[in-house]
């Protein structure tokens, strides 16, 4: 199983809550990670392009963009395939965390 790059995983996470345009994804990721992962447009759109190619996300039809939003931009939403990929990645990480827990690595974090 291929692992997802952290940036890609974060992009998918950002789209879980609903459709978003590029800048909104950038902001969402920056906020969620406390600025640790900062996507600049160049990298972001390269990932979006690959996610689109792989069918993990798709682009909203212009007509179905909700009223009153910024319709000049392209909006993206996650596909079933994308949800599956994110889920797989989450599972992989969860397993990893389980292993780590077994080694007592989380003990002093109070969980």
């Amino acid at each position, binding site marked *: 199983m*291929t692992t997802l*790059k952290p940036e890609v995983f974060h992009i998918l996470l950002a789209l879980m809550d609903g459709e978003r*345009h*590029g*800048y909104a994804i*950038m*902001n969402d990721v920056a906020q969620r990670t406390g600025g640790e992962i900062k996507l*600049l*447009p*160049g*990298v*972001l*759109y*390269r990932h*979006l*392009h*690959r*996610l689109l*190619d*792989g069918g*993990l996300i798709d682009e909203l039809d212009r007509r179905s963009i909700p009223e009153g939003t910024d319709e*000049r*931009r*392209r909006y993206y939403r996650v596909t079933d395939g994308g949800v599956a990929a994110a889920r797989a990645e989450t599972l992989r990480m969860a397993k990893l965390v389980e292993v780590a827990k077994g080694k007592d690595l989380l003990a002093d974090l109070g969980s």
Partner: protein
Amino acid sequence: MSQQHPAAITWLQNTYRLTLRSFPPGFQDRYGRDMYEAFIDSLRQRRATGKSVIVFSLLACGEALVQGLQERWAWREVHPLASSRHSWEFPAVRNLINDVRYAVRGLFRTPGFAVVAILTLALGIGANSAIFSVLNGVVMKPLPYPDSDELVMLWHWYPEVDMQASVSVPAFQDYQEMNRVFSGIAAMGGLAGNLTGAGEPVRVQGALVTADFFRVLTVEAALGRTFAPEEDVAGADQVLVLSDRFWHRQFGGDPGIIGREIQFNDLPHTVVGVMPPDFGYPSAAELWRPAAFTAAQTDPRNRGREFLAVIARTKPGVTFEQAEADMASITAILEPEHYSWTTGWRVSPMRMIDNAIGGIRPMLWTLFAAVVAVLLITCVNVANLLLARAASRDREVAVRVALGGGRLGAIRHALAESIVLSVIGGVVGLGVASVMLKVLVALNAGTIPRIAEVSMDVRVLAFTFAVALGTGILFGALPALRAARANPRDALAAGGVKSSLGHKSLRAQRTLVVAEVALALMLLVGAGLMVRSFDRLLDVDPGFEPDNVLALDLTLSSTTYPGTPERARFIQRVLGEMERQPGINSVAAIDALPLSGRNPSSSFGPEGYDYDNAPGLPQSARRIVSPGYFETVGINLIRGRDFTEHDMAVDAPPVIIVDQHTVTDFWPDDEPLGKWIAFDQDGPYYSVVGVVGDIRHQRLDQQSRYHIYTPLGHQSAATMTFVLRGRGDPALLSAPARQAVKAVDPSQAVFGLQPMTQYKERATAPQRFNAILLLVFAGVALVLAAVGVYGVMSYAMSRRTQEIGIRMALGAEGGTVLRQLVGRGVVPAIVGVGIGLAGAVLTTRFMASLLFGVSPTDPLIMAAVAIVLLAVGVAACYVPARRATRIDPMEALRYE
């Protein structure tokens, strides 16, 4: 706050938009706009929260560039999702990408260094791109006509008076018949007139052209048509072709204009065509009318009336040299028949492009040399920065080499870093260039022909990229070589700081200082020469006093004022009306004001002239003036008297006023008053009643021809310039002046309203333009050189802190140490000044044609510039040296 400045923001946005071009076109189409929007939103957010916009923008530009190039590479293979790592099949490419990544990461780690280096480079590269754009648009680009290299202009050359002249109608017709090399030959004459009947009367500039003028240039009308041959005949010639600009300005771009009748010079004319927006020849023309030569013009006896510019197109396959040879054979036929009165006359063909831009080349190349020097200094500075940085990274490099990175790898890393810097610098430099270009165009004030055609096209982009790459390699070479010599054992053992490499690097840096001081000196000398010659030019006494004088032009319609008596009457009435207006001390009229660019002339025969032994008749600038002209514009009356009202009467005895130059050359020992001058063999004989001071008419830096003034009334011109002298600001006189003209004839258009000082300003505009630009570039060079010397000295001091501390601790006098340090530090600057002086002596001669009243090796300027640079060098050494001697000895000893 400077980073909130809207112009800076726009510029950053444009730069970002440019960097997005690094992505593959398909990618750009799909995401480019959103990426740009995302960038703008981020900028907006940062501004709202008060964070730095500039650093962020530069980072984003760099990121876009790197990502774009990677994407471009990946785009070659369709490879979905997964990680992009599989797409690098070639190790070389992979290495390259890795090096670039490593370099970019390194720059991100030291953003201060990166920003300083990138901005310095952007300045140097941008200046080059801007001047190259001008060179490209003005000198290198062909004229905007199909096969424009076939276009040739024909002039008459009179070597005796060193004059290039226009062509007369009979001569033009001879060339049409006799030539074997041209597929078409057309002529063009000046045309000015008034457009009436639609609101305020408007004064219009145009050109009279023969019917095949547009065919020779090979341009079609955008709307309607150009002239038909049958319209190029007197009587059928009341047709006009309009320029696009004029069509828009005057008729709001109404497409119904074709076929409409408009009043031009009080005659109905039909508009038959509108030219495309990019057509402008001659550049000031707002409309064109058929030349339709009259019988008087074609009369062979009127061969002396030379007023046509002749444009020809060579037949396919005929070279310019062949055309020259053909015109030489025509010269051989015509010369003995018609031009034997002067020696050496010939038809002189000139490539049309040379005709358009001939005089401007030396100036543009000088400017280009200046910006190249600035760029070289920039390179030196960035190389210095890199060297200093590399010194602190010796250990890192050594470790990499030791771990098997290889020397080649080390060189690659160093070069990758410098190239990444210079390419980003180049991208930002494009933004700098576009701003500079706007400033240049604004400053230019009609100095550079074809400036409207200057733009940043593909060639400029390619040039910029090449310069950026070359720059990167140039300033990266030293640090790269240094990296190659890295010796793991030394570097690691010596703790990095005191390795032998450090000394070598310092030597390299000192050499760089020598180079940059020498370059800056040459540039400063060039700028100094330009400023001095501009100053000299302003000091020239033009022979008149333009202050407090207002000038305005009137073109009299040939239907309302057909002859000299009517014109003279009208002009006198206007003058009388003007005199009555408040605030006006004196008024007068003349047909061609000094420095106005107009210069009608005719040959003349002064009394006692030795016709038998002279090659031909002397040429004079012949002026038509009203009484009071000399007083109004402040020309000195040396002897005799001014014209009076009485002299203007047609039946008054013909009188004339000459300038001192005429007297000195023709009647050096005689009383000039009472001498006569004739313009025609049959008379009349004008007797001299006054002598006035010489003036500079064509250019401030050139003596004028003999000036001979005749009173208005005996002669007249269709376009006259009125001059009004008041007490204060001449602009205040324009309302009363207009009022006076309106009172006499409400339909008369007034134009060219301006203080007379503006003529002088225009005459000095090219020199001012040169001086300002060179001064700016030299200033930049001086600052960069100062920064360079300072940087090297600071670095050298920081390495010697310990030593200095020991000496101080052992009781060395602070002042003595300081003197020694500065004395040593300033040595490279002294060497640089010496080399620079030698270089300046060798190179400034190439700008001799741009100078006036100053020698290219003016010792005063050389000395002054040398002193300035030495002073800057001493100051740049003094500051870090003083800091070093101020340090507490104990602290210095602990310093590592």
